[in-house]
């Protein structure tokens, strides 16, 4: 069951096929390589003057990645509306049962995690989509290394948080 309105999730094979279909459509129709964490740079590039955000790779891709990311937000919104209505929530599933921080604690927890995500994906050069889905599928060695690294670190962190600390 999902946290969102306690909906039953799609079958994993259906969801995986859908992810593959969008990834391949982006490449075949528009010659675009799926990658979402680079979108964080796109946003930064509008407000930060650092040369890193003035790279050709950023400036030449903003025009497609920004609408794609806007679509992700909209897709989540549509999913909530169709699944029972849009109602902002603090519900965090097993975090509430096991760790149990209130709103302020959750915001601090999430901001801290977000820092790791933002810094880590930029240092690694990609995230689950660019390295994990596209990179692995395109048999790129750096993507295999990165994917193994973030899966191992995720497993270790969750095991420590849920089996050792809490």
């Amino acid at each position, binding site marked *: 069951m999902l946290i969102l309105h306690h909906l039953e999730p799609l079958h994993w094979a259906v969801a995986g096929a859908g992810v593959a279909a969008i990834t391949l459509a982006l490449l075949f129709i528009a010659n675009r390589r799926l990658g979402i964490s680079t979108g964080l740079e796109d946003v930064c590039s509008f407000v930060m003057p650092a040369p890193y955000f003035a790279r050709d790779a950023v400036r030449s891709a903003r025009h497609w990645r920004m609408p794609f990311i806007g679509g992700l937000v909209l897709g989540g919104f549509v999913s909530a509306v169709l699944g029972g209505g849009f109602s902002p929530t603090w519900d965090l599933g097993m975090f509430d049962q096991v760790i149990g921080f209130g709103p302020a604690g959750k915001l601090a927890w999430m901001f801290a995690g977000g820092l790791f995500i933002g810094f880590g994906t930029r240092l690694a050069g990609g995230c689950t989509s660019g390295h994990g889905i596209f990179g692995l599928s395109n048999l790129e060695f*750096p993507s295999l290394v990165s994917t193994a690294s973030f899966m191992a670190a995720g497993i270790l962190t969750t095991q420590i948080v849920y089996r050792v600390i809490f």
Partner: protein
Amino acid sequence: MALLYLLFGVIFGFILSRSGAADYNFIQGMFLFTNVQLYGIIGTAVALTAPGIWLIKRHGRTLFGRPIRIELKPQHRGNIAGGVLFGVGWSICGMCPGPIFVNVGEGKIYALAALAGALAGAGLFGAIYTRVQGLFRLPRLVVGTGDG
């Protein structure tokens, strides 16, 4: 074209939202080995995308006849170090970058803090890039006006 990318994003976001890929419990279940949903999704996606990319590259052209050009990601020490940092963050938030945006759209209030953190983290990396460039053997920046 912007509308097409928006539409792709909506479909992709809807799938992430309804599959568990953007769900805190399913992400922890993957890392705790108590739920196979995410392994199934990622495994299926790669198993279908890999032959798809191979076919598209063999075809060599997009639907509209433009040459297919895939920019490869550079190999450096950051692949491991950044991957480890990202994995820690993925576990803490229960979201990777795509699902952060999806969770914001679903109305999960705390996802806004994850988004703020992710933008701050990316901003910090950009700001100190030239200082960590040697340490991680990162590529030289190619700065220009870009084509878009």
